[in-house]
């Protein structure tokens, strides 16, 4: 076990998978000479050379297409698109090409393709560099979508994505970059489709992912002081979703709060809520509560942004509203 930052865990995942499989290559915006905006690919170019670690032009459509074509031929592409917001520049390539090829071609084509991208705010990056757009991708059959809340999962989920035979969108939260934690050394994966129980509890299930998950853990500690024993679940694999794991928790607690940083309207929390209502209605003692960002673009000013992302206070308020 090593202690490392979230950024270094991301870098280590790519390094380990490149060591393990010569068909893995890394390409994207500023991945080679600069080592990416936050250092997530630092040192890879020096270690593996320019044939396997490639800076691309700022041509997002071409970057994703490079991955589609190369992975169709048997390579494993790890593409970096820096900010999730930039995926708007290559939505056709993600939505109509990567997501659909395997299906449209009747399984002739396997696309082991990973797209890494930053999500999230709290660093004053404003509306075009701060979004959490996971719900855009969960709506597209053919893609897998994961998002990590800590260094261990950042490494394990990314490694798993690189080994997966399908296009995977890996969403990394930029506010977590300096976070440190224990991470297994060497090659290490976290399986998709499995929730992680962060805290056991019996009164309410709090479901979350990425940065908001950590706020939920802190909120649960506060709730304990008020006599509410919350169970906190890191959903982390949005597609495939561990709905059975979630339902097992809901059956135990009877109450659900789903918290995420994405805009609440049309967010993936709504889908999880609908699934719970559909498959676990009889377990529920109270309405399902969602906590998300308001229906506005992400504002720049710290004075505004601090009211934008869900925080511990809002999560606690949502939980308490279920006890009446």
């Amino acid at each position, binding site marked *: 076990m090593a202690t490392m930052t979230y950024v270094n865990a991301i870098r280590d995942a790519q390094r380990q998978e490149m060591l393990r499989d010569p068909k893995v290559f890394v390409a994207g915006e500023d991945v080679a000479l600069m080592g990416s905006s936050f250092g997530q690919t630092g040192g890879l170019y020096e270690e593996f050379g320019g044939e396997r670690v*490639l800076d691309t*032009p700022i041509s997002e*459509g071409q970057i994703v297409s490079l991955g589609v074509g190369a992975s*169709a031929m048997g390579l494993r592409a790890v593409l970096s698109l820096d900010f999730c917001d930039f995926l708007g520049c290559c939505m056709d390539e993600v939505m109509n*090409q990567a997501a659909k090829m395997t299906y449209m071609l009747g*399984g002739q084509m396997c*696309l082991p393709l990973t797209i890494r991208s930053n999500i999230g705010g709290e660093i004053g990056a404003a509306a075009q560099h701060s979004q959490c757009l996971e719900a855009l991708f969960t709506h597209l059959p053919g893609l897998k979508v994961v998002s990590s809340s800590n260094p261990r999962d950042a490494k394990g989920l990314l490694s798993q994505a690189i080994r997966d035979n399908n296009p995977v969108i890996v969403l990394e939260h930029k506010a977590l970059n300096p976070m440190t934690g224990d991470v297994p050394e060497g090659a290490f994966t976290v399986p998709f489709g499995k929730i992680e129980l962060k805290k056991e509890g019996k009164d309410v299930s709090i479901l979350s992912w990425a940065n908001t998950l950590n706020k939920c853990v802190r909120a649960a500690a506060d709730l304990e002081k008020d006599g509410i024993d919350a169970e906190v679940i890191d959903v982390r694999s949005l597609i495939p979703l561990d709905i059975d794991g979630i339902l097992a928790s809901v059956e135990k607690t009877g109450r659900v709060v789903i918290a995420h940083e994405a805009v609440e309207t049309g967010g993936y929390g709504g889908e999880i809520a609908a699934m719970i209502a559909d498959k676990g209605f009889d377990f529920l003692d109270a309405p399902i509560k969602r906590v998300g960002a308001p229906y506005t673009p992400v504002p720049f000013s710290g004075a505004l942004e601090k009211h934008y992302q869900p925080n511990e206070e809002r999560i606690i308020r949502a939980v308490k509203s279920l006890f009446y």
Partner: protein
Amino acid sequence: MKLTKDAYLSLYETMLRIRFFEETARELMLGGKLGGFLHLYSGEEAIAAGVCSELTKEDCICSTHRGHGHIIAKGGDIHKMMAELYGKATGYSQGKSGSMHIADIGMGIIGANGIVGASIPITNGVAFALRYLKKDAVAVAFFGDGASNRGTFHEALNLASVWNLPTIFICENNHFGMSTPQGRAMKLKRISDRASAYGIAGVTVDGNDPVAVKEATHEAVKRAKSGKGQSLIECVTWRHHGHYIGDPAAYKDPAEQKLWLSEERDPIPRFEARLLKEKVANAEELDGLKNKVRDVISASVAFAESSPDPSPESMYDFVYMPDEA
């Protein structure tokens, strides 16, 4: 370029296979047997035939919504193609793709594509992989004049050039982006002029002459395989039908349409006349080939019609590929 009799007849036969396949598909659709969209390649056969005659099995192509011709010329299985048009379980994609998304990875056919311009940058990904895997092969992107106005075209030419990828760009200029004439969509007359913006070779050839296309492709393959750079080959041609079956193409000038469909312009009668004039083959041999190809296409229709529909539960297959063991 000096060609053997076999090479000439192979070009001719490929063009016939495409034409008869397309015209048969057209009749089938007009007769209510096929659904979906069909974008016919009739009139443009010389391009696919000429280009693919210079490719090996290891070389790869990426195609378009008007892709039947490319797939046939690269050696695609006509039975599986026809069955796919019928949406049958025996089709290339078991009825999941229809006309616009046919591929045969083993034959280097990386896929037709329903989005205009999308396959151009994908071709670079294929070319990158070929180089990465140390294959002595090229990747060829087919696309139309309309696609050359998409950002994907420009991103792709730029990346191929700066990474020196073994990519060849074949622009099939049939004068129309759906209904919009080239002159309303770009100021340039020659699309090959766009090559110079990316530091690659650009040439315009007669796209209705399979030998001219073959010669240009020969040079492009040589250039790409020796690491000397990429090529944009503009092949000037004409789409005999509308954008798709059902488009009456009222936007075409009737005189121009008549000229391009004349025996002097239509690539097939034109090539036939050349074969006869140069005494490569006699009329009997050419008729023999026609009958042979007609039989192949008829057999594909019979195969498709007698094939089963896909089972309802197969709808759920291949949304994802299974994980590694």
